[in-house]
């Protein structure tokens, strides 16, 4: 196949990519979103280098410097045991992104696979998969997460498992709908008549037609996963101290509201910043790829 593609060079597709890229650049919200996401990723990866007080990420205690308001030395202030909040936010992004990668890395392929199967094979497969998906969708997410983390112990991995169990259903629904409409097109039957296997039809014919919708949804989801993870931590069901997690930081800082406002507000703003970035990027991608979510 690759040899056939090499017959001659054709740069028209390249210019199409170029056109999509230009359309993306013309959308200021999308560009800002992309920049925010990049900054969050850089902050998380390079946290040990960027943080002014890398040691504060752990169980560091400095009671002389507790509850210091944002200043030049501590841009986001310090918390109730004297740790630099800015440094902890940078490390907090690591946990958040780990959560995003862990959850979406499992939930998206799973949901896509189930959605493809349910959308392509009508009948029993469709009824079974979509029935199960709809039952899962009917469960209140927080209650479900509560149940899972209560049975297992509350920590990062278990909250990942809890969120993953809930998340794949949305991708399943989305891919199911796209697959169902694409599968009705003549080229699917033509491929089958040419002798293609179900495997080929599912992954080589149908899946490429779903990628636009999947990538937009995944980007939008990244923000929501961070938010959901933060909610779990806020309730004490997620990451446990002293690991810096944005949700836990908001929860512990909330005790000192309103006087020491920065202790809850700063990590809260950090959550807002990351989610805003992912949402703007997702919206921009949607405009660029022209898909409905």
């Amino acid at each position: 196949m690759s040899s056939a593609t090499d017959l001659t060079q054709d740069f028209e597709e390249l210019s199409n990519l170029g056109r999509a890229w230009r359309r993306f650049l013309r959308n200021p919200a999308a560009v800002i979103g992309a920049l925010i996401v990049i900054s969050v990723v850089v902050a998380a990866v390079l946290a040990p280098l960027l943080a002014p007080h890398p040691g504060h990420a752990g169980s560091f205690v400095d009671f002389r410097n507790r509850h210091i308001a944002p200043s030049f030395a501590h841009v986001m202030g310090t918390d109730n045991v004297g740790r630099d909040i800015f440094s902890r936010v940078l490390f907090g992004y690591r946990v958040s992104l780990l959560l995003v990668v862990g959850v979406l890395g499992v939930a998206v392929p799973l949901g896509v696979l189930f959605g493809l199967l349910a959308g392509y094979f009508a009948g029993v497969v469709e009824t079974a998969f979509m029935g199960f998906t709809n039952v899962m969708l009917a469960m209140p997410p927080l209650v479900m997460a509560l149940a899972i983390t209560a049975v297992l112990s509350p920590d990062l991995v278990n909250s990942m498992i809890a969120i993953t169990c809930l998340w794949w259903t949305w991708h399943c629904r989305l891919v199911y709908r796209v697959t169902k409409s694409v599968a009705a097109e003549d080229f699917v039957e033509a491929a089958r008549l040419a002798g293609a296997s179900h495997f080929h039809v599912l992954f080589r014919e149908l899946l490429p037609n779903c990628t636009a919708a999947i990538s937009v949804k995944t980007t939008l989801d990244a923000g929501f996963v961070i938010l959901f993870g933060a909610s779990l931590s806020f309730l004490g069901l997620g990451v446990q101290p002293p690991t810096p997690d944005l949700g836990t930081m908001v929860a512990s800082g909330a005790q000192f509201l309103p006087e020491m406002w920065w202790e809850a507000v700063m990590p809260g703003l950090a959550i807002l910043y990351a989610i805003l970035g992912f949402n703007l990027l997702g919206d921009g991608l949607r405009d660029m790829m022209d898909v409905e979510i």
Partner: protein
Amino acid sequence: MRGDPILEIQGLDLGFAAYGQVTQVLHGIDLRVEIGQRVAVIGESGSGKTVTMKAVIGTLPHPAGRVLGGSIRFQGRELLTLTRSERDRLKGTDISIVHQDPLTSFNPVFTIGQHLDDVLRYADRRLGAATDRAGRQRRVETTLRQVQLNEPERILRSFPFQLSGGMRQRVLIAMALLHRPQLLIADEPGTALDVTTQDEILRLLNQLVSEEHLTLLMVTHNLAVVRQTADYVYVMQAGRIVEHGPTRAIFEAPRAPYTQQLLAAIPPLYGTRVQRREALTTDAFITASDLAKRFVSPRHWLEPARPPVTAVRGATLSVCRGDIFGIAGESGSGKTTIARMIMGLLPPTSGRIEIDGRSIEDLRADPAFRHRIQIVYQNPASSLNPRRTVAETLAVPLAFARSARRGERADRTRALLAQVELPAHFASRYPHQLSGGQKQRVAIARALAVEPEILVLDEPTSSLDVSVQKTIIDLLLALRTQLGLTYLFISHDLSLMRNFCNRIAVMFRGEICEQGTTDEVFLHPQNAYTRALIASIPVISDEEERAKPSVTLEERRAVLASTVQL
């Protein structure tokens, strides 16, 4: 006064702005419509005919559409300098338009009555005339009777999907007539409809023009329709008017090479230009006897059982090796169902199909069978995966083809493209980089890749312009002689079948009502439906008009009354 111009377009230049530059699409259009005249603008897709109409009625895409120069005068008033509200007052009242697509022109959640009442109410409001609901209702009903819809109360209560295509087209015409316009613009009237229904719609338009003192400006790609309905013709190509003149002159002595080419591309129904196809052999290859298909919709526990739909019944046909066998019929007549049963995609409810002496049940179990019969679909947009290049699309069948080993695939791809007369570098193109005709060539190449013996052609040219259609048909004919293929050609286009098929079966409501060699069927049609069907095909010369079977008004009525469409 008759003879005075109602619409005059002079030197109209128009462009579309995109990516910071303006692309000119109309170049100096001059067009004149006189009161009481029936004028047609004809051209293929992309010729600018619809854009011209949009400029007249003032619905150019905003803000992309730009008038670059020229003038449009309606009843002596310059339209291009009118303010938006002045222009809106003309819309629907002095100038009306009948849109092309009778289904998407309606909002599916409103009844026909609501649609018509809205049109009338808003137009009245624009004119500053307050009207009451009952008065409007009376006017709507009168107009519906004018377009020969005889149960206005029932029609008004119906939702668009409850009406047939022909009825929806009539309602659209009624909608345009509500305000007794001076000028009626018709965009591809009847094109989306079956030929018998289209014939009725054209008759209706003709009648309205003469009875209601209307002026008709028609936009179409169908030359035969023009000959029947217009007094004066403008031919457009690539944003320019290449020829204009009285209809008779255009058809009998076209001057512009483009017009000549267009006329030559239209398959003739009768006369010396008709192409005759001969069977390559006389040995029976595909035989179907007493074939029937009934669709039973699955029983739902909340609904009463729906009666089964009989799509095909009692169909018996025999196709020889190397035949071009046509299955003709209007929409819903069961022609595609027969083809799908022969392909082994649908199990018949009863009856027998044999291919090359073996029964279809036997063949379906054999994986090699699938390669003996392939299909080319109607809609090129849907038959190619938008995410796969031409080479990738061809790679699928090549991977399973008997002759192609791995290393040979690039060669085979190149050979296939050459066979369908496409340059080799098209291999790396995506479907959106191809024109409709090129896509159809790729679809043919894909079908040929597994070296089939039978090709099912499901209206392969119906979405293409007539000149492109000719090139595809020529290609298919060349391939048949080259590869000894047998074609099963499904179509509603009888003039095309006349020139392409050597045998033909005419289907009507699930039954084959007439079958024979193409000459037999067209020259001596026996069945009343076949006669009415052939008689309603628009043709491009008087000679052909005279050669058509004569059908009395009563005969035509009887057939139309029994069709699903009305």
